[in-house]
């Protein structure tokens, strides 16, 4: 046996030497043929235990190692889940508090560059495309880079320290109670980054019903693409009221959105396991590694990789969609009317455009949720990628507005024809709840089709997933509005 640490490159030289000499070693016996079922694993561990008992002499084992002392709290029946909640609350609070100065700096930089480019280019379509399409659209998403970096920095820290394995252990009991295999934890955890690798990680689950139930609920975990939507709405409409030391209302709202997705995922999984996907629950074996200090280099590499992915998306999917949406919001041109002010003319142009007409056509469908056509269009566009919701808002308000104010300021001051504000804290919360539940991601649908069996069967499960999530999103957003208004919120 050769001990190695892949992230630090330790033990690689002896491993390399061993591989060169491996050809001369005897072939493994059939006793260790791969069979991943839990029962076989248990039998194998029992056999290993017996062999170790007969052959290894140990000093009396102390339960007082540093890891044991930490685990006495981290894995406590009551203290463990509480500690987990406290850690997550601090993470989400840090996402807001620490990112704010960096976000402001990026926002100012994007606005300044957009303003400068606008001065250099002559008045016309090209100038509008660059300023209102590219800078307003892509720029409004780019400002969330610090939040992404901070969130994934913390997730990396928790993973590398060994705490995430404890979180899996804490979740295992809960997941077994709702009928999910313990192995479902890793796909669901991956879902916080992106549902696509989460769904693909379900390949480690042997039982088809366990696997399908996990696939169907993984997209309910709040992925990183939802982060710009939450951050924009919370930062704009939720006040930073201090709740307890170290946590304000903004951080608590963010934590609530993540919890809402997770709790609902477990509830829906239980529902599927009791109806369409009934079957026995299997045990899971989980090894808890000792706690260790994270390696700064590998932590930085993992954060940088997430940032690269985010920047690549901003430069490809979001850029091209911003340009297309700008064109849809700009053409056909509305006839000029000398009696209108510049602002009225821009608003009339937006309503006259292809995007405006489409938005007005779908407005009745989103009106019960308190949304106007601009939110409706942004929701539909975000089917390509959820961050596109933010870039579409940026483009719409870029084309429809005169000054180059930040998107958050535009949303705060937007009013309808009667002069009432379009966005209120209640609408913002409803919209966030909609995004917690709605499957607005075509990549996820494609991977569900493939992983759920492909062909007609794959499409059937993908359709079930899309429809139940959309229905849940619509009903929940509507309930937030109705209950909120009944309680006197605006």
């Amino acid at each position, binding site marked *: 046996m050769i001990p190695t640490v892949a992230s630090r490159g330790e033990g690689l030289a002896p491993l390399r030497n061993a591989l060169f000499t491996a050809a001369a070693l005897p072939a493994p016996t059939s006793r260790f043929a791969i069979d991943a079922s839990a029962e076989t694993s248990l039998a194998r561990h029992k056999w290993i235990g017996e062999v170790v008992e007969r052959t290894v002499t140990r000093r009396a084992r102390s339960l007082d190692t540093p890891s044991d002392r930490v685990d006495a709290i981290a894995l406590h029946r009551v203290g463990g889940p509480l500690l987990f909640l406290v850690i997550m609350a601090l993470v989400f609070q840090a996402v807001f508090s620490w990112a704010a100065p960096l976000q402001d700096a990026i926002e100012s930089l994007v606005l300044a560059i957009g303003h400068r480019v606008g001065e250099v280019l*002559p008045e*016309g*379509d*090209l*100038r509008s*495309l660059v300023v209102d399409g590219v800078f307003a659209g892509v720029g409004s998403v780019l400002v969330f880079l610090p939040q992404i970096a901070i969130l994934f920095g913390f997730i990396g820290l928790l993973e590398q320290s060994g705490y995430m394995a404890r979180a899996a252990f804490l979740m295992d009991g809960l997941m077994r109670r709702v009928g999910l295999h313990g192995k479902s934890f890793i796909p669901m955890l991956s879902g916080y*980054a*992106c549902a*696509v*690798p989460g769904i*693909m990680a379900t390949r480690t689950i042997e039982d088809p019903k366990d696997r399908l139930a996990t696939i169907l609920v993984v997209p309910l975990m709040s*992925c*990183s*693409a939802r982060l710009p939507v939450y951050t924009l709405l919370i930062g704009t409409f939720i006040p930073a009221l201090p709740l307890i030391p170290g946590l304000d209302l903004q951080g608590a709202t963010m934590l609530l959105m993540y919890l809402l997705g997770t709790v609902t995922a477990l509830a829906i999984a239980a529902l599927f396991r009791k109806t369409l996907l009934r079957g026995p629950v299997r045990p899971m074996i989980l090894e808890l590694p000792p706690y260790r200090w994270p390696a700064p280099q590998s932590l930085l590499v993992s954060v940088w*990789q997430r940032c690269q*992915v985010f920047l*690549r*998306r901003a430069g*490809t*999917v979001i*850029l*091209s*969609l911003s*340009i*297309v949406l*700008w*064109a849809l919001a700009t053409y056909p041109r509305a006839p000029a009317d000398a009696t209108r002010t510049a602002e009225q003319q821009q608003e009339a142009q937006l309503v006259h455009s292809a995007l405006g007409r489409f938005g007005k056509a779908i407005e009745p469908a989103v009106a019960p949720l308190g949304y106007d056509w601009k939110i409706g269009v942004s929701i539909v566009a975000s089917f*390509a*990628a959820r961050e596109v919701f933010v870039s579409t808002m940026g483009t719409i308000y870029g084309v429809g507005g005169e000054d180059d104010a930040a998107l958050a300021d535009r949303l705060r001051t937007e009013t309808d024809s009667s002069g009432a504000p379009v966005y209120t804290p209640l609408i913002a919360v409803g919209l966030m709840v909609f995004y917690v539940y709605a499957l607005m*991601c*075509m*990549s996820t*649908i*494609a*991977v569900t*089709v*493939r*992983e759920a069996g*492909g*062909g007609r069967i*794959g*499409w059937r499960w*993908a359709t079930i997933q899309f429809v139940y999530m959309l229905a849940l999103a619509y009903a929940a957003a509507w309930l937030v509005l109705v209950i909120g208004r009944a309680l006197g919120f605006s």
Partner: protein
Amino acid sequence: MRLDTVITLAIVAVALAAVIRRLMTQMRAARTKRAGGPGCDNCGHG
């Protein structure tokens, strides 16, 4: 037609082609059974 309008329309056409290409890629990924396929440009997996 003004030059800046021509450039603008050309940029829009390229962007539209990119969006359609992405859509086709996703459809192809859905048709590919299990292993393989172009994967996800969100996370780089697959």
